[in-house]
């Protein structure tokens, strides 16, 4: 007995065999293993299969001068790129695709040259995914990660079909698909277009010349359901990306329903059966795929402001982005000189071949900036400030090894102030922190805003900012300086949401005698850990911060 997901996957591949270029390709989420091997065996092959890898160079993609062959031959040798001819592009480890490659592949798919991309996503966490720009351009999204070998069956690659007449879809059917996409909260217009194409190809596959209900159901299952961002019946009360889908969809579909025998309901049923049961939970927790920050599974590129630690050089090709390690190259070539001289006695000088070339590698570490946002209000201000100062100095003392910069924002009275601009200098810090005032209200929103601005600025300079909020109480001064507790708290929550949405790592240290539920909530909004530390001294604070930041 095969699993329904497996049957759908096979259907998707058969449709792909009909028209690889038109459908763009397929995104297969599945770890490497027997299930995937079986599926790949069924990959249609009307096109040549080419394998890519996430670090593929431009020369390999687009073609260009073959430098090493040219050097050997003495005249210009060009090589064709992978993208020159329509091909079925296999992209293993697709979740690690850097944005640059994703952009190039997206352009290639847009060009209508007939490319077809099979993205093999081996991501383990929901966070690791194919870049959305690419996923949007692939018709089929298959998730086979829960399948075992017994759920599958042996399949053979579908045979490419002879030129065929494309099945016709009437305008009502087109409308059904568009409506359904809107009700499922799929805002991209590529989705209904792919659904239409899939339905047409499915009709061809079944020997029909007109698209019928079964084709629409298949298209819904394969194309629309995996992209759903909201449950169809929840469309009325949750606001999904296209604002009024629920209402307009219902109003406008009513007359159509009567004539065509409620296809909308049948399609919805098909989609609902496919939706992951935890869809709502995912959306509520905000960790759904579309809410991800800028990071992709590839890990953000380290943009250090220093060149970084040299790593051992390794064999490689000179593609204009890397530098040759001359000594290592010569060392690699040295043992072969005698042999090579015997082989080609006419050439003088050193004999260096392509395989000898070693390229330099660096490991760049981006510097981290710890922004301490310290509550300097009220009675406990002095003690807390002193602790914060102590922690800042302690962290700075080990900053050189950890590549940390620190900054300190204090908030008290009616506003916040940048007390210590980002620095690594212990001397400067000590001087600046010597006299800090305290007392007054708690303008937490102002403090968070200053931190947010600072984080934005420093990000542009290649630092990785982290916000650490030290406080014991509730916000009671709003952003505009008025003493309005309610507004102050909603302002603080809004800013916390902004910080969380920007993907800034954050940490809330609660220094009050009794842990406060409100601060815990704030930490949740900030998407960061919550540390209750009553009577924290500088050493414990420093240790706790280090521990929370380096899991």
């Amino acid at each position, binding site marked *: 007995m095969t699993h329904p997901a497996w049957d759908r996957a096979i259907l998707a591949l058969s449709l792909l065999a009909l028209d690889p270029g*038109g459908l763009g390709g397929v995104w297969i989420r599945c770890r490497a293993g027997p299930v995937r091997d079986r599926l790949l065996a069924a990959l249609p092959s009307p096109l040549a299969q080419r394998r890519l890898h996430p670090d593929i160079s*431009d020369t390999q993609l687009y073609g260009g*001068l073959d*430098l090493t062959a*040219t050097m050997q031959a003495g*005249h*210009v040798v060009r090589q064709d790129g992978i993208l020159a001819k329509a091909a079925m592009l296999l992209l293993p480890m697709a979740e690690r695709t*850097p*944005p*640059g*490659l*994703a*952009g*190039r592949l*997206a*352009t290639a798919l*847009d*060009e*209508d040259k007939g490319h077809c991309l099979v993205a093999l996503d081996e991501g383990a966490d929901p966070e690791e995914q194919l870049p*959305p*720009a690419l996923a*949007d351009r692939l018709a089929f999204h298959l998730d086979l990660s829960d399948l075992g070998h017994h759920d599958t069956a042996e399949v053979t690659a579908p045979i490419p079909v002879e030129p065929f007449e*494309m099945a016709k879809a009437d*305008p009502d059917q*087109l*409308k059904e*698909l*568009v*409506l359904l*996409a*809107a009700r499922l909260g799929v*805002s*991209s*217009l*590529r*989705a*209904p*277009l792919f659904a*239409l*194409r899939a339905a047409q190809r499915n009709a061809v596959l079944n020997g029909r010349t007109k698209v019928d209900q079964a084709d629409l159901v298949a298209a819904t299952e394969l194309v629309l359901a995996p992209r759903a961002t909201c449950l169809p019946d929840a469309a009325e009360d949750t606001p999904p*990306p*296209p*604002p*009024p*889908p629920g209402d*307009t*969809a219902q109003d406008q579909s009513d007359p159509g329903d009567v004539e065509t025998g409620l296809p909308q309901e049948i399609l919805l049923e098909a989609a609902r059966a496919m939706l992951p049961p935890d869809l709502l939970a995912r959306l509520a927790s905000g960790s759904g795929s*579309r809410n991800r920050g*800028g990071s992709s599974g590839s890990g953000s590129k380290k*943009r250090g402001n220093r060149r970084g630690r040299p790593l051992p050089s390794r064999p490689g090709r000179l593609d*204009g*982005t890397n530098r040759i390690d001359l000594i290592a190259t010569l060392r690699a070539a040295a043992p072969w000189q005698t042999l090579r001289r015997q082989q080609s006695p006419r050439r003088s000088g050193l004999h260096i071949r392509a395989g000898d070339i070693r390229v330099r590698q660096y490991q760049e570490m981006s510097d981290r900036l710890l922004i301490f946002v310290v509550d300097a209000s009220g009675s406990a201000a002095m003690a807390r400030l002193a602790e914060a100062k102590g922690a800042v100095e302690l962290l700075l003392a080990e900053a050189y090894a950890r590549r940390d910069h620190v900054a300190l924002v204090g908030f008290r009275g009616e506003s916040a102030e940048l007390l210590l601009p980002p620095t690594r200098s212990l001397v400067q810090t000590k001087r600046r922190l010597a006299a800090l005032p305290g007392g007054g209200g708690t303008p937490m929103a102002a403090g968070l*805003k200053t931190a*947010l601005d600072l984080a*934005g600025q420093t990000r*542009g300079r290649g630092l990785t900012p982290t916000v650490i909020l030290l406080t014991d109480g509730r916000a009671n001064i709003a*952003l505009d300086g008025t003493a309005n507790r309610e507004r102050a708290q909603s*302002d603080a929550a*809004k*800013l916390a949401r902004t910080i969380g949405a920007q993907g800034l790592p954050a940490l809330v240290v609660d220094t009050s005698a009794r842990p406060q539920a409100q601060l815990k909530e704030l930490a949740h909004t900030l998407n960061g850990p919550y540390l209750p530390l009553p009577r924290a001294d500088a050493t414990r604070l420093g240790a706790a911060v280090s521990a929370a930041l380096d899991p």
Partner: protein
Amino acid sequence: MTVFPFTAIVGQDEMKQAMILTAIDPSIGGVLVFGDRGTGKSTAVRALSGLLPQIQVVKGSATNACALEEVPEWESAGTELVSAPTPVVDLPLGVTEDRVTGSLDIEKALARGEKAFEPGLLARANRGYLYIDEVNLLEDHIVDLLLDVAQSGENVVEREGLSIRHPARFVLVGSGNPEEGELRPQLLDRFGLSVEVGSPTDIDERVEVIRRRDEFENDRAGFMAKWDAEQAALRARIVAAKAALPDQHTPDETLKACAELCIALGSDGLRGELTLLRAARALAAFEGAGSVRLPHIKAVAASALRHRLRRDPLDEAGSSARVARMLDQVFGEPKIAAVGR
């Protein structure tokens, strides 16, 4: 390769307007298109190449020189003038600096031992468009380089023993999804117009998008023929507007209105006013108005100003709403006074 006809794009009027305006007056600067995926951003940019009027270039010139005396001395171009399509050049993410600015021509260096310059993307985009998809993910050093060239209109290459300069005047078109990253304010400011696109919320409009696309895929030649007349008409209007641009009269009231609006919005610098005025003038020329009036300003204000406002993390309405609010405030009641005087 046939591209989807520009005129067949459903809706997205603001984006289309912005692109037409830059085609009329390239000095407006670039266009930034921010919006969700699958809203026709890339389609519109690629469609531009099918819409824009042809330009006269020196045959074989890598920098698309418009006259013989404009050809840089390092180029081996022909001597005759030919007409060529306006270049629309893609700048892919992760591109190397060499590819952008141009570098030593390795082929010539190896084969003939000559030190020659191989022009890069900036040379190819001269007098045309440079398109960056996912511009917010572009690496910083490339951004810096582009800013510099876009500002000066000239590309200077000093590397590998080469010392080359050539004109690089292009309209920068960037697109991206704001969820994936912000753009630095310096780069934002360099784009003349910015447009926010969203998926159409009207079901009929969405259906129309899919229908046209489907029609296009099924019968390209037929679809192109069907839209040919409209394409030609729009092209003719652009050419006519280009010619009429210098004749557009700008009354003092209009200038004052520009300044008032920018002050009310607190936009940084004077670039906002200048772009607003240029865009309004291009629109006036496009509509054959003869003089730049308040309705023109109003029609382009959001595109010209929304990306120049200081960011306010608490204003959840977004900058488009702020511009609209200010437009109402500034032009709401004193409108009659401003025009009547």
